[in-house]
């Protein structure tokens, strides 16, 4: 490759006006040819770019593990267990709504004692009303003996 052509391509290269073919010519020249001293300063650029191009991704591409058939089955089994437990639980609770004789007795006792408490509190309220009357006496007495 004649020197003048290389110099011309170099100028175009720095102006961003070379095409890929031109750039390959430049690369080949600076990598392989005996470069004259006045162009030697450009050599590291092309050698460096070539070195950068040789870098490799050295890992394996990690993807999430595919679900195995066993795992898929496991999921179905889990769903089945859940459904079953709801069914069993439902049956258990619906049964517990029917009261045993002892429970009925306890419930009746509870209702009775509730009634008794209510009666007590009504009478207490009556007593409280009477007490306000006593206070009225007190007020009247204060007025008289003022």
């Amino acid at each position, binding site marked *: 490759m004649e020197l003048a052509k290389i110099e011309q391509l170099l100028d175009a290269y720095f102006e961003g006006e070379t095409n*890929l073919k031109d750039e390959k010519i430049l690369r080949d020249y600076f990598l392989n040819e005996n470069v004259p001293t006045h162009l030697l300063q450009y050599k590291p*650029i092309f050698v460096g770019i070539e*070195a*950068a191009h040789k870098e490799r*991704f050295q890992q394996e591409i990690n993807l*999430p593990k595919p679900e195995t058939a066993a795992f898929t089955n496991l999921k179905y089994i889990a769903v089945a267990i859940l459904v079953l437990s709801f069914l069993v639980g439902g049956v258990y609770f619906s049964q517990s709504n029917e009261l045993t004789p002892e429970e009925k007795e306890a419930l009746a006792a509870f209702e009775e004692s509730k009634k008794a408490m209510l009666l007590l509190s009504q009478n207490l309220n009556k007593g409280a009303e009477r007490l306000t009357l006593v206070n009225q006496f007190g007020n009247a007495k204060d007025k008289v003996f003022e």
Partner: protein
Amino acid sequence: MNQVEFLEIVSPFKDKLYRLAKRILISNDEAEDAVQEVYLKLWKAKTNIKNYGNVEAFAMTMTKNFCLDRLKSKQASNLKLVHTNFPTSGNIERNLEANEGVAMVLKILEDLPEQERIVIQLRDVEQLEFSEIAKILDSNETAIRVALSRARKKVRNLMIKKYNYGIG
């Protein structure tokens, strides 16, 4: 689509995604993480993969956006970028020590603004056509030529400066 079929479609451009991620994020580890994330996203969207036309260009765009977001959130949280380019995963770095000039170029590239780094990466390193780059960056060819020229000149000028003072 199963994983084998998926990997057949997306594996061929894994190095390209990685190099782009590394050009933006600088660190090897972060670039590797970014590529894994992009592949995970692609996998989750696999049912649409046939609608994306050019899956590779789509994946490149995803990688670029993901890495720029990473950078942004990092700057927002005021974390300093830690360069972990010690000869842990890349053997290239070690070979480069022999050639200081090349190491210098790569260092200069790291210091360019992100957008300029990206165009240099896509054009000079990956040798993509301007039309393809425009598609990946959602930009137009003129804007890309301008950015590319600016980036190349910056590299040249910094190189010349260092070359004359340093190892010249």
